[in-house]
């Protein structure tokens, strides 16, 4: 799915470190089919709803002013833990297009952008500053310019971010990575032939 060039949208602050994928997409939903259209509901489900299914008052995402949020501004080590695809898809189906954080778990940022969910890593003080504004002014907007690699906080402060050329193109154009790589099939074939000759024991002969 293609991402975006620019996005100006309501951003929701999440202040806790280590929001893991067991919270983002609880285990019991992993056997569900995304096509059923419920993944948005599953997003951070047990943080948003109590055992009876009622919205939790202490969850900021339940604030009426954040119901149309398309951006999350989190803390450190966001989306650590399980590499379950539902953790990515549930963000998208809930309406989140980008997550800004101090750091991410090891796998999430390597793949999320390929499905149209942008992850932006900014220095701790920058993220804290943006989160602070979003907490003081709930419902405020953050702007993201992917082409120019800049995040603008609600107060207008601009923070540059890094995204490599490859990820930028994949994200903005939504191109199929499989197609791109298969464009290199000659190289893959040549490598494979050489590699197999060098390591003949890897043939699954038994």
């Amino acid at each position, binding site marked *: 799915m293609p991402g975006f060039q620019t996005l100006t949208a309501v951003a929701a602050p999440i202040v*806790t470190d280590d929001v893991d994928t067991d919270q983002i997409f609880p285990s019991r939903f992993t056997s569900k089919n995304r096509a059923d259209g419920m993944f948005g509901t599953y997003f951070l489900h047990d943080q948003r709803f109590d055992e009876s299914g009622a919205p939790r008052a202490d969850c900021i995402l339940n604030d009426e002013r954040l119901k149309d949020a398309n951006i999350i501004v989190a803390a450190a080590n966001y989306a650590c833990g399980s590499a379950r695809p539902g953790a990515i898809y549930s963000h998208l189906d809930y309406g989140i297009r980008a997550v800004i954080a101090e750091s991410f778990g090891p796998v999430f940022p390597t793949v999320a952008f390929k499905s149209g969910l942008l992850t932006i890593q900014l220095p701790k003080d920058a993220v804290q500053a943006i989160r602070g504004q979003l907490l003081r002014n709930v419902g405020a907007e953050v702007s993201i310019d992917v082409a120019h690699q800049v995040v603008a906080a609600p107060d207008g402060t601009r923070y540059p971010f890094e995204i*490599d*050329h490859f990820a930028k193109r994949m994200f903005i154009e939504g191109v199929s990575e*499989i197609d791109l790589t298969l464009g290199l099939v000659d190289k893959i074939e040549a490598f494979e032939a050489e590699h197999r000759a060098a390591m003949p*024991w890897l043939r699954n002969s038994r």
Partner: protein
Amino acid sequence: MRAARTPKTILDKIFDAHAVDEEGGRTLLYVDRVIAADTALSAFNTLRNSHRPVRQPAQAIQIPDHFTPSSGPTLEHAGNMELRTLIRDTDAAARSLGIPVVGLGDPRRGIQHVVAVEQAYAQPGIVIAATDSHTPTQGAVGALALSVSTDLAHVLATQCVWIKRPQPMRINLDGRLAANVTAKDVALAIVARIGSAGAAGFAVEYAGSFVRNLSISGRMTLCNMSPEMGARTGIVAPDDVTIEYVRGRPFAPADEHWDAALEFWRTLRSDRDATYTRDVILDVSTIEPMVTWGNNAEDAVPITGVVPDPAGQISPERRSRMAKALDYMGLAPSTRMTDVAIDQVFIGSCANSTIDDLRDAARLMKGQRVVVPTLVVPGSGMVRAQAEAEALDVVFLSAGATWGEAGCSMCNAMNGDVVAPGARCASTSNRNHMGRQGPGSRTHLVSPPTAALAAITGRLADVRQFQGS
């Protein structure tokens, strides 16, 4: 004139031997072997819907483990119709793409990482990829083992993955463990020390005299916990322990290629003058049995320790997480860990389900009775058969524990094996996240001996004081 030689780590050596192409700071890395699981249906459907073949189906394998039942050997035992259908459809999709299946009914079945190591599907110097975040477990035998999440379809279609070379980090472990202290305690001690993001962006090489003397099972436990410190993967350079382990296993090099393979494997050690971006040094002889009190593996303290106080935290983000964790876990600051009563016990998961792990647990459980519900789930059908050959199943069953069929089971609670809301579980698994073992579940990560002692005492206790019967 000799060309200047750049010193390389084992990671560099494997990486360089698999680099197909480079573009914009990313490497197109060739993948020797791929593991799919019962979570792979959407990847399989992506390929089928776009009429793309799997590039090398003989280099892939399908090993269902997340949704498979522990209560019985066949599909009929699956927790519900949805799970039954999902396991069946995913295996069928794999077969339709030409991928061999090690499924229910196959004696080799089990947790993908345990099966891969045990069958020598993972072996020194290869790049192996799977969706699952605990794929780094397989680094125990010197493979570069990568979790690729939603990139599985790409890996199957191209036999490659685009990756930025992770920075090398070395965790050097020396010394000898106290009795009944295990590699799990070492792993928890490391995470507690460096933090849940302490290895973010790194591939961790475990080295040092402790690691050299450690079994493959112990190395699996260390590598398994690498993602809990934020690492991209973990690896132990192959040595005689590795070679003796791999020799003769089903996917090991055939006899006619053995010597050539060995020659290559002997080159797979980091050069003496290789540099690491980060070095951590730990003496394991001072490590106590470790237990977690919170919702992240870094929330680990020695069994002689207490629950920490969020008030002592300077960072508001950390204080927030800690306070939330204590509320969720139902624990008060300064509570002694040995005063924590346990409601149930789980022994299993890719962190701790090898025959060595089960022996560790059985040693403490022998001749005892469990006082809380206890589930023991071996990592594979082969581990289960070996345990039964050693009558470990008799030890567990006569203690009153449940002896399950191999799979992920209660670690991630996807197959219906759940911890009740609010119940406190001593678990040998690798994650203690909120709701991980079921909604409202409270997980304390521990080693197999500590889990076994919790089962027979109903509390977290110090395995060093266990006298046995």
